């Protein structure tokens, strides 16, 4: 065994959890008559470095560990957790969670055994095990390149975050599964100033990879991207307001799909019939050009996982095929409800939270059009290149996105950069209005984190160049709209 940080519950740890301990705890959890119980052991270590004003200004590291015990009785969940792995503490957590089923009869004894999981993280040495100087050097290179790129660059902030999350799940169906999930994320932000005008630009990436990431996406490359964006934005003009055609750039724009469609296809909202996609499997919900998948198996992507947080082995889920709704993303609870099998979408932020259906890598697959033709077809519209973030109202699919880099398209050509662009619309409407898809599908570099009911998880997105006919652009220039 190599490496510095290992879970106390792992094979060589101080509090090894084997099948016998798991069985004892599961029996305690089901002692009041619960239908199902699971144990979620987690040990996570994260580090971060902030390079600012040409020095490594701060370095941080955090260790968080514990056990979450879940007991289900019908649709009701009992949840409790503890932060140390002494048997007494774990027993108390199991007994607290068991209370949800107070009054029932205990189940028969059970046996658990370990499942084999795939290996989707191409990491030879975990970043946390690499000496700090090597990471400092990467941050220095980015800083130097950004400063050298243009005299108008007045500030450079570079950050690097690394983590590893070791999990062990055991459930009353008899499954045990283990995963060790490494993750890195690099980010660079610059501010450029010209006269009184100041604009920010940024670039970032990462995934479930090691520091080899920087061989392809060099710190210098990220610096160039961020500086280019800030300089472009210095010349940006006010955005038009009103309805017009919108072209989304490949890769990053997948976040729009994640928000506008993905969340509505998470099975919990459909079990509760609070999603606008409820009871619509088999119906046309998007233009025939659209096929949407959620795929946890992409090698090294930020959203990829070998095992979900309920111990399931994720598969590639086809959500929409040729515009027709095929199915939802399931966790155990919703799969029971829909009479199907859980497909590996049960995720949680940490042992302090219960799992729910979440996305992994959500992608709209590529089409037939050349990206140039897509732009050429637009008389007046907006080209959305980089997204700052977005939000959706699950109940009706209404969404809002803000762009950090967007351009005006006039007579088939990308012309002026625009500032303060928001895209507002409705998920199902936008998907029906997809009229062209490029053959340039890309997976976004790993920067996205998805929030739901207060829980954050890393996700991936991907898409080709997309043309959406008529979307509301929220700018300030009424006359131009």
């Amino acid at each position, binding site marked *: 065994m190599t490496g510095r940080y290992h879970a106390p519950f792992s094979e060589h740890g101080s509090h090894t959890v084997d099948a016998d301990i798991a069985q004892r705890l599961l029996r305690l959890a089901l002692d009041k008559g619960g239908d199902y119980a699971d144990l979620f052991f987690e040990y996570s270590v994260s580090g971060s470095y902030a390079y600012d004003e040409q020095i490594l*200004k701060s370095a941080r590291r955090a260790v968080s560990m514990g056990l979450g015990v879940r007991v289900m009785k019908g649709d009701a969940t009992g949840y409790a957790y503890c932060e140390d792995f002494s048997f007494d503490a774990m027993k108390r957590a199991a007994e607290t969670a068991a209370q949800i089923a107070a009054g029932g009869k205990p189940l028969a004894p059970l046996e658990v055994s370990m499942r084999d999981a795939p290996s989707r993280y191409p990491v030879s040495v975990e970043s946390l095990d690499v000496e700090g100087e090597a990471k400092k050097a990467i941050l220095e290179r980015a800083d130097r390149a950004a400063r050298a790129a243009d005299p108008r660059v007045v500030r450079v902030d570079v950050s690097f975050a690394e983590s590893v999350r070791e999990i062990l799940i055991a459930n009353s169906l008899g499954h045990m599964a283990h995963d060790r999930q490494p993750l890195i994320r690099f980010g660079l932000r610059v501010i450029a100033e010209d006269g009184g005008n100041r604009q920010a630009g940024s670039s970032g990436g990462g995934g479930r990879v090691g520091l080899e990431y920087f061989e392809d996406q060099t710190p210098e490359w990220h610096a160039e991207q961020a500086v280019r964006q800030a300089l472009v934005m210095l010349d940006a003009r006010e955005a038009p307001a*009103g309805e017009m055609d919108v072209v989304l750039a490949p890769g990053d724009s997948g976040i729009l799909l994640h928000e506008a469609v993905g969340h509505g296809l998470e099975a919990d909202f459909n079990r509760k019939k609070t999603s606008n996609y409820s009871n619509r499997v088999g119906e046309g919900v998007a233009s025939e050009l659209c096929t949407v998948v959620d795929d946890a198996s992409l090698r090294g992507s930020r959203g990829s996982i070998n095992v979900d947080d309920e111990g399931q082995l994720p598969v590639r889920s086809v959500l929409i095929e040729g515009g027709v709704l095929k199915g939802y993303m399931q966790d155990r609870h919703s799969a029971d409800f829909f009479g199907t099998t859980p497909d590996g979408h049960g995720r949680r932020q940490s042992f302090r939270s219960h799992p729910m259906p979440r996305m992994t890598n959500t992608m709209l697959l590529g089409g037939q059009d050349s990206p140039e033709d897509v732009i050429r077809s637009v008389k007046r519209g907006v080209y959305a290149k980089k997204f700052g973030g977005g939000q959706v109202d699950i109940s009706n699919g209404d969404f809002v996105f*803000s762009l950090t880099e967007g351009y005006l398209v006039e007579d088939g050509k990308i012309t002026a950069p625009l500032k303060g662009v928001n895209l507002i619309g409705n998920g199902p409407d936008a998907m029906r209005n997809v009229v062209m898809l490029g053959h340039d599908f890309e997976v976004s570099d790993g920067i996205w984190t998805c929030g739901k009911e207060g829980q954050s998880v890393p996700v991936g997105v991907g898409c080709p160049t997309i043309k959406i006919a008529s979307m509301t652009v929220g700018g300030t220039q009424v006359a131009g709209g």
Partner: protein
Amino acid sequence: MSEVEEDAQALVDLGRSVVERAIEAGADVAEAGVHNGSHLSVKVRMHEPELVEEAGSRALGLRVLVGQRVASTYTSDLSEPGQRTLIEDALELARLSESDEFAGPPDPSELSSESQWQDLDTFDESVSQISADEALEHALRGERAAFDFDPRITNSEGASFTRARGVSALITSGGFAGSDHGTFASIVVNPVADDEGGKKRSGYHWSASRHYADLEDSAAVGEEAARRTIAQLGAKKLPTQELAVVFDKDAARSILGLFAGCVLGGAIWRKSSYLVDRVGTRVASDLVDIVDDPLLPRAPGSRAFDGEGLLSHRNVVVQNGVLKTYLMDTYCARKLGLRSTASASRSPAGGISPSTSNLVLKASSQSRDELIADTKHGLYVTSMMGFGFNAVTGDFSRGASGFLIQDGELADPVSEVTISLNLDQLLQRIDAVADDLDHRTAIASPTFRVSSMTLAGS
């Protein structure tokens, strides 16, 4: 000693021991923050319990300086090996960091002590006594009231009730030792109604308080949630236009929150705020007064001392529309050549940055209804979506929903539009402020009106 005082003493003792060990291990400065919390949260949906969650947690954060090199570490593993890793990692990382001439603790003469701290009444023992059954009953009553209010409420995202108790301590090698404790109870109800065209409308309402007795009645919360959900039925876009915008107190609070992020010293020295070099200049209309007040009794953001141990005090941020000060911790103040405003906030993970405490936009004497009656044509915004704000430039553009105001009355519901205007201009165009301020949230504002904004719609 009461139970909570005993808990606090245990945390102080643990923090003191970690600080001493870090100094022995080679730190020149060591600061430990220790937290101990417990919570119960329950959720019901369609009249049945859906979740009962109960747990306690502890955490230890350490920040060290070696010379002027800074590092911080955090752990939830309070075992002996866990504490050892915490201290060793902190020192290793500090040696990797580079010297920052502005880093360092406040001068010891600035530190506060127990005799100076006000009792802010943030702890209510009866909150920690609320049982799971009692919590479920609140949530069930809230949800039932929403269903009973109107037959068009046909579904529910559920109703939740949460109670929390927290105790924390801060120990620094500079000589500060203090502890703090608080409680919080909250209820939220989230009904769903069917709208035309197969759309659903989800709405919510909530109440939260430090003291159990201050919590709004759960049935009243449920009814208000239903009222808000029903009111949005049939919401439509409006044509693109310039118009007056009235922000209700929830939406207004969200605008004030954007301003809050721009007035913090960290955003200023990083030049990441449109308020750089603006102290002493007009940043809002003369109707606007904004105060950061950490000493409000029972308020969510109250604190007797700040995250570095300085005595909390009230800061007037904007007076008659003129920016009076940024909010700063010691580091930001040194960077800007100013004095700390005692606005330091220490994260559990050990980092320090300035934060607002209770940031309040002062109420006027006009009622909300009078303000609406005084608006001939406008948009009344009740909620906003998305993240369309650029702090560097102040450019603001977000999705909004609410109601059309016609001839001084709330008319048709509106959704799927965006409203845009640079925040600097937005605050300067505030031409009316209402009297409906409350302190449910740490950032609080009454309803206000902006004379003109761009609405993008159909």
